């Protein structure tokens, strides 16, 4: 096939360490790799010859092969070496500890979900997988019992498949203390941690995936400074304890569930300094905390322009929610079921939250509203009964309903939460603002077009009457 012609590999080899200089390898035709991962090609032979601790620098070129790294080596791709899996099987398998795999473009795995075809699979501790670009892959980086590994600066893009048929861009299975840093994932399924304690996920970006970061039974994980945008769900924590989520941007996650942060039966969690905007639900609490003695804390977050700022299912009790900015969420807080004012606390000492819909005032100017904030609008009450009525959102009729709710105390629904000391000013946001997407020049041009239409209508009105004349005939 055209595979043979496509490969013209200029092989410059540098093996650092005690290994002798390798003989110059001619660009031999590389056989089609078999189904199983086996080192058959050029790089594979280099790996066979290398001694533990060696560094193999792979020159630019396209290598159609499947690799097994079965001794502690460093492979350097320099960003231009392409390893092509030819559309089947896994591509790189790391089966020895202390392997570094850096700077490759890995592409074209199989698409067999049962066999979990992965671009890079690590089966041993302390793997370092850095600065690789993974394209057209089912699973991206799959760590299986590879604790203390480092996954850094990789770009991982999935296959153009229906979300249900995609694989996970990143998966950690029983890989404690791994560091996942500065990776970009797009168009995949999840970045998921299974049974992995003490993992740090920092500065990663995820777009158009299913779950931006998903924790299953993974304790003491730190999720920091990530940008998770346009996924189905931003961060989903399940059955995990001691998770800290701080300084993340969780934007426009609007899948069927569409949570910025979802928490299911998670204990001792901290959500802090996050900017959570434009999601279907900003923070979704379901059965968290699972153990009453280990509640969670939500503080210093900005929840803005979500359909619902925070949702509490009846099972979410005992959490502390303070010093957050609730900015113009269509529905700031939604408490499912009948609710209980004491279930979760929205203030501590004299620090409550900032609410854009707070209707009280601050006469003594101490920065704290003089009345409690317990806003539940009548329309929200109706939505609780009949979700279909969301169809009338943004219409004047909705405002009429809310006006009735305010004006007639008998129509007021019972409040489901209360903030005794609402803040009058927003809490300072520590996170720098997200980059603007809309262009100011374009907006000004748009304004110009509209005003231009206005002026031309005015001009048309001033046209001399003689141009158009009733009964005009020549």
């Amino acid at each position: 096939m055209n595979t043979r012609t496509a490969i013209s590999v200029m092989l410059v080899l540098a093996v650092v360490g005690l290994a002798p200089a390798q003989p110059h390898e001619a660009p031999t035709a590389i056989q089609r790799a078999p189904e199983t991962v086996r080192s058959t090609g050029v790089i594979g032979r280099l790996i066979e010859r290398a001694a533990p601790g060696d560094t193999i620098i792979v020159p630019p070129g396209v290598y159609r092969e499947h690799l097994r790294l079965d001794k502690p080596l460093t492979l350097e791709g320099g960003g231009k070496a392409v390893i092509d899996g030819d559309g089947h099987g896994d591509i790189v398998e790391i089966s020895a500890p202390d392997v570094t795999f850096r700077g490759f473009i890995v592409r074209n795995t199989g698409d067999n979900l049962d066999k979990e075809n992965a671009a890079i699979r690590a089966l041993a501790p302390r793997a370092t997988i850095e600065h690789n670009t993974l394209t057209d892959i089912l699973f991206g980086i799959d760590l299986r019992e590879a604790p203390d590994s480092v996954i850094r600066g990789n770009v991982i893009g999935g296959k153009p498949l229906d979300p249900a048929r995609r694989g996970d861009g990143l998966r950690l299975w029983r890989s404690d203390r791994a560091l996942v840093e500065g990776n970009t994932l797009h168009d995949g399924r999840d970045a998921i941690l299974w049974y992995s304690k003490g993992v740090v996920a920092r500065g990663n970006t995820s777009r158009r995936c299913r779950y931006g970061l998903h924790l299953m039974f993974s304790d003491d994980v730190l999720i920091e400074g990530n940008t998770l945008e346009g996924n189905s769900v931003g961060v989903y924590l399940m059955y995990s304890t001691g998770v800290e989520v701080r300084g993340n941007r969780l934007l426009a996650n609007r899948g069927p569930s569409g949570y910025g942060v979802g928490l299911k039966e998670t204990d001792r969690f901290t959500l802090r300094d996050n900017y959570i905007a434009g999601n279907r639900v900003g923070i979704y609490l379901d059965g968290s905390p699972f153990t009453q003695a280990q509640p969670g804390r939500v503080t210093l977050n900005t929840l803005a322009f979500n359909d619902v700022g925070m949702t509490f299912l009846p099972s979410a009790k005992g959490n502390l929610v303070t010093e957050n900015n609730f900015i113009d969420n269509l529905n700031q807080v939604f408490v499912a079921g009948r609710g209980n004012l004491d279930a979760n606390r929205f203030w501590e000492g004299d620090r409550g939250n900032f609410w854009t819909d707070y209707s009280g005032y601050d006469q003594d100017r101490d920065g704290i509203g003089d009345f409690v904030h317990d806003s539940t609008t009548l329309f929200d009450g109706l939505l609780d009964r009949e979700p279909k009525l969301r169809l009338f959102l943004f219409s004047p009729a909705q405002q009429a309903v809310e006006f009735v709710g305010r004006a007639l105390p008998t129509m007021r629904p019972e409040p489901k939460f209360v903030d005794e000391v609402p803040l009058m000013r927003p809490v300072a946001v520590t996170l720098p603002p997200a980059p603007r997407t809309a262009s100011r020049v374009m907006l000004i041009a748009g304004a110009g077009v509209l005003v231009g239409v206005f002026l031309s209508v005015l001009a048309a009105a001033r046209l001399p009457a003689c141009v158009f004349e009733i009964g005009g005939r020549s």
Partner: protein
Amino acid sequence: MTTLTLTTSPILTRPVPGALANIAAVAGRELRDALRSRWFILYTLAFTALGLGVSYVSAASSGGAGLSNFGRTTAGLINLVLLVVPLMALSAGASSVASDRERGMLAYLLAQPVSRLEVLLGKYVGLAGALLACLTLGLGLCTAILAWKGQDTGVAAVLTLAGLAFTLALGMLSVGMLVSVLARRASVAVGTVIFIWLVFVFVSDLALMAGTIALRLPIDQLFLLSLLNPLQVFKMWSLHAGDASLDVLGPAGLYAMEEYGPRLHLIFAACLSAWIVLPLTLAAAVFARRSPL
């Protein structure tokens, strides 16, 4: 040949012949009158001021930190258009024929060599021009405010909103003119359209809400019934055009997306077109038959 025609025939100094010229002449007069009239200046001022308020407040509520607003500004403007534009267009239409008839202007107009259809269409086009001027001034200044405040709203969203608001205005103008043709007096016409406005803006939606709760309306019927209200159609179309999605409207929105998919645009367009064409046709039929006096 062309130049010869141009030099020999004084076509440029002569009026444009035929029905189009008649319509244009009536339209020009109507537009000039409207732009000078009190209602137009009042509505334009109100719409512009409220629009500027909405834009300014929504830009300010983003904390000035450049927090992107995900179309909430557009939502505020949609709300404003829903309240003001139908009232403006309905009352413009209502007073058009009826007040001319009261002042005896209609008899004078019809004494000219124009058909009744030409008069009606001319009035419609002229008033449409006035409404267009009002909308573009208001939304243009709003857009300028958004640009000035560094608001993260796309230009396409604003222009789409302006276009759709104008379409809604055309429909409401059409209804207003039908009322105007039917009514004997201008005051009756204006009173009637204010009632119609109340029905469109509040009564029908509230009734549908109550019906949904009381009768447990299934979701498909709820959506189809909501299509009867041109204001709801405008709202859904604007949201759909901005986000390519109706998911913000909850289950009914998701149902519509699932059921009709890309055909939603066509459905919305058909609904609003019907509100433009049908009342105007009816008005023309009535106007042609009835005594203008």
